[in-house]
């Protein structure tokens, strides 16, 4: 069962992946530095498939798509936050990293979570409660369903609203 690794409010992209590592196309190399300045012990406790949980405004700061990519390549299954910084939120969905906005979650470090992505429902096994994620606009859901914007546009060639 995936575990929650809980961080605070306003976790900026410099702390998710420092700018000095971002200039690369070797995207797997990003994973080694994820959360480095925020939580030097991250790699010891994190297991592939675990979940990052945060408070307000996760991913604020730069537009670097390397931030969600670093989390994805490190094996983060989903990021849950009260709400996300807008560029990070778009980027995450565009690159196929699931993100859920849950304004009222009470998730604690080490809680066991069960995630139902398609319905946006998170069950906190440890605390025996569940939360509903904020609904996404249809265009975002469609992009998420295709696994990201690259696949979406490969298939549709253009945006489809409706």
């Amino acid at each position, binding site marked *: 069962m995936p575990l929650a690794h809980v961080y605070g*409010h*306003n976790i*900026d992209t*410099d*702390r998710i992946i*420092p*700018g*000095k590592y*971002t*200039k*690369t*196309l070797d995207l797997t190399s990003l994973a080694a530095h994820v959360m480095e*300045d925020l939580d030097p012990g991250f790699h010891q406790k994190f297991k592939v498939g675990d979940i990052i949980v945060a408070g*307000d*405004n996760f991913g*604020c*700061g*730069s*537009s*670097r*798509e*390397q931030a969600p990519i670093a989390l994805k390549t490190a094996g983060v299954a989903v990021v849950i936050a009260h*709400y996300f*910084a*807008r*560029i990070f939120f*778009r*980027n995450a969905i*565009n*690159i196929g990293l699931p993100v859920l906005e849950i304004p009222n979650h009470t998730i604690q470090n080490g809680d066991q979570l069960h995630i139902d992505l398609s319905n946006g429902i998170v069950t906190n096994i440890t605390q025996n409660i569940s939360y509903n994620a904020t609904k996404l*606009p249809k*265009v975002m859901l469609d992009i998420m369903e295709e696994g*990201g*914007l*690259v696949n979406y*546009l*490969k298939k549709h*060639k*253009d*945006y489809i*609203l409706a």
Partner: protein
Amino acid sequence: MAQTIAEKILSKHSGKNLYAGDLCIVPVDGCMATDTTAPLAIKSFKEMGGITVHDKNKFHLIIDHAAPAPNERIANLHNLMREFAAEQDSALYDIGSGICHQVMVDHQKVKPGDIFMGADSHTPTYGALNAFACGVGSTDLAAVMLTGKIWLKVPQSIKVILHGKKLQPGVSAKDLVLEVVKQLTISGATYQSVEYHGEAVAALSLSQRMVLCNMVAEMGAKTGIVSPEGLELPYEFTPTYADADAVYSRVIEIDAAAILPKIAIPNSPDNVHEVRAWVGTKISYAFIGTCTNGRLDDLQAAAAILKGKQIAKGVRMIIAPASKQVLIEGLKDGTIQTLIEAGATIINSGCGPCVGSHEGVPGDGESVISAANRNFKGRMGNPNAKIYLASPATVAISALMGEITEPITQ
């Protein structure tokens, strides 16, 4: 129904009346990416099946974040950009051209009423031109390159009114925007447009308006737009005004004439205080540059303070002019010489130490006073350094004294 500036610009582009909360797909008038974001955007563009960009005249690549290349990995990414631009026969602004945002404005690649998407978070800077500009990630940019369009949710707007005609001595737009960041906080404008109005704003130059819009990124905003009153440009343009009864999520009124010099202390741009509360804090590194405060008037403000003087012993001062044009103008009018004579080191026009890639990473335990926009932990490449953000005038006088000092004793 009455509209905000953001609603008007988006409506005009989509051909129907849009209001906050509506979703739209709009044509984009220009887009750009830098050496941090372009390589990934090009990769995504190709993976999407892209062969030629939708409109090569609206597509710009800038090598500014780590320029000239500090290592072979980045050198290869720069070459990838050069090759792609050659292949597309599109614009490439190579090393020395300047910071992406300044380059786009210098070269008039963005104009009033435009929708512009930049793969850099400080793209809202162009709102100074009464345009709608957003920062996006690489894959969103790749989609703009492919389709010429973007999907957007029409943002709610926050109206910021800066009253007062005359600013206090030593006060510039940076001090005003730091006050706005303080009031709105680092997340206070998330998903929203920050719309600037008021007498104090109408009196500002384009360069100073750019400071106001630049730091909406530090409020989490989608965009920032300045109302066009008083905007002077070297070409004809159609201004977009907000309707008097447009709907705002929030209205903030500030007496700009009463604002004193401000400083953001580590480690967040919204941790804003008056400079006078931090006077005496030792600094060993002063930096002027960036898309926030690396323009000619910023360099001139520093030169006015440093003319004929020497920066304090034990302090190093690095200056990165925001663009080639700024550098040339600063050379012509003697500003650059004044700064060098005072002990400053001039580096290449580009992002320089702002993002910690090269050219001036601080050492452990050092305190930096910087004219940039972010002071997150590790921002300049070393998590063990402290970064204080202030106006160019405050940075210059602090370099002179070796400690944080108020810039009113010019």
